[in-house]
């Protein structure tokens, strides 16, 4: 009963490999397109091997949407957002997990409700706020709205709860100030959780689309997803460039993922499955 027949095993492997072709095939196709001459994306029979025109496509893409600037925008926005949000959310998570204070439960409940509320509800008022401030088309209007990311606060709280109270008490007895305890004692211990949440925040902002689409108005301020969407809105789409653009938006995060997949997955699971 327990010994599987070789046939069943083979069928399982075949099905799993077909699944793999579906899930990573499109990426391979994207890289093939990015490295072949623009006109050849729709060749019949199609190209199945990477070509040598990657540089040319990249240059065309840079001429068209200023990809160097766009990459800088995306990186700058994402890194600033991740760093700030990490400090803000871990501070809040720490307060929720390790202190008893008036209003704690009420504020936490509000946060849980906020996770449910679709982000889209805030789009128009946010657009008005930043319009009134004269900040449409500015980096800070992309960075600010989601800094207090409810889900990240929630995750930090979950992780901080495992922190032993005795550790904090011992530091206090030693005369350490509260900030010192937070930055020098708590955060170093929490490094794995911080890494997971950082990856989560990074990915959210790197891939974020609807809000940058609304608030960024000129090509030199676009982030990668917005620049990509502007490319396919053109009357004549240059597919080599487009594929190069999607490759540039996907490849960094893919490499990142392959190096750090454990933290990646724990960041995305977010302790949600711990029973």
């Amino acid at each position, binding site marked *: 009963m327990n010994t599987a027949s070789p046939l069943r095993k083979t069928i399982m492997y075949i099905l799993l490999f077909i699944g793999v072709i579906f899930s990573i095939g499109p990426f391979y196709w994207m890289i093939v397109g990015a490295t072949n001459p623009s006109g050849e994306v729709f060749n019949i029979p199609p190209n199945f091997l990477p070509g040598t025109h990657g540089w040319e496509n990249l240059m065309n893409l840079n001429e068209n949407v200023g990809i160097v600037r766009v990459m800088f925008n995306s990186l700058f926005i994402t890194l600033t957002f991740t760093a700030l949000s990490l400090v803000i959310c871990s501070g809040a998570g720490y307060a929720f997990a390790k202190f008893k204070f008036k209003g704690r439960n009420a504020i936490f409940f509000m946060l849980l409700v906020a996770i449910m509320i679709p982000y889209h509800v805030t*789009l128009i008022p946010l657009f008005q706020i930043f319009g009134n401030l004269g900040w449409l088309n500015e980096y800070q209007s992309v960075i600010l709205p989601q800094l207090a990311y409810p889900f990240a606060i929630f995750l930090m709280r979950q992780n901080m709860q495992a922190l032993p109270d005795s550790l904090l008490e011992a530091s206090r007895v030693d005369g350490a100030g*509260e900030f010192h305890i937070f930055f020098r004692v708590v955060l170093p211990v929490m490094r794995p959780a911080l890494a997971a949440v950082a990856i989560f925040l990074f990915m959210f902002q790197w891939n974020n689309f609807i809000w940058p689409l609304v608030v960024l108005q000129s090509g030199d301020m676009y982030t990668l997803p917005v620049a990509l969407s502007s490319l396919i809105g053109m009357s004549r789409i240059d597919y080599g460039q487009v594929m190069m653009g999607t490759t540039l938006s996907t490849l960094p995060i893919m490499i990142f993922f392959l190096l750090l997949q454990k933290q990646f997955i724990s960041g995305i*699971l977010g302790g949600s499955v711990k029973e």
Partner: protein
Amino acid sequence: MSQSNANATSSVETSTSPNPQPKKERRKWITPRTAPYIFIAPAVLLFLIFTVYPVISSFLLSFQEGKAGNFSFVWFDNYIRLFQDKLFYKALGNTFIILLIQVPIQLFLAVIIATALNSKLIKMKSFFRIAYFMPAITALVAASIIFMILLDENYGLVNYLLSLIGVEPVGWLTDPFWSKVSLMLVITWRWTGYNMVIFLAGLQNIPASLYEAAEMDGASKLRQFFYITIPQLKPIFLFTFVLSTIGTLQLFDEPYILTDGGPNNATLTVTLYLYQNGFQYFDFGYASAIAYVLVLIIGVLSWLQMKVAGEDK
């Protein structure tokens, strides 16, 4: 206790004094009592400005009309208009069709793959896990663009491969029926691996003794799957179902890129309609009303799902 009270009072004095002394004084107002408020203040402040205020403001806007700065209250006019708007019903209908067809397919696929990868028979588990999870890290915009090219009616790779086995070209993005299918295809591609990982984590929490006992009773693998695996995964099913429901109701990037809601509004979703009204026609009041109907739907569904979950426990 009395000492921390003294500290709390002195904190008021210190913080109002214009020139706080370094170190010595600072230690007085950051006490274990005030610390939580200091740690939480930035998050709460940002949250009030960028979430709470907009949520309220958007609610008020939904009762107003005005396109260029001059707003006046029209009370329920936006909502009345919404309930007579055929296009809104179409968007709502599309969203629910996707919800009812795609979410079950995706969760079913995810649980099957997770079970296979959890089996002792399979080697190279981490390779498969990485491969299946890969789509979940891609930008939705990039994924949608790749599929837009793959699914091109005349020149796309998918139709070419189909032509090799004698299938006529399919209007993946130009036919109302197939464009919905395409949209679901892209969503399935993107999210199955994500849910698979969640199920995998859930499967690893099922005690092995349950399977050993069933094995001894001579239960087949299929029976074990339906009588042990599925019931044990119930909380995970609920969790992924809630996540997928909320995600589907907010679907925007894929239909915006893939078809821009077309053809003939077959792939128009609620959030895409919201975006069009808000940022293409600049009808902020009407768009806010759409947003609030969405909030209401998500609220009701979440409440229902929690109720179902609550009754089980």
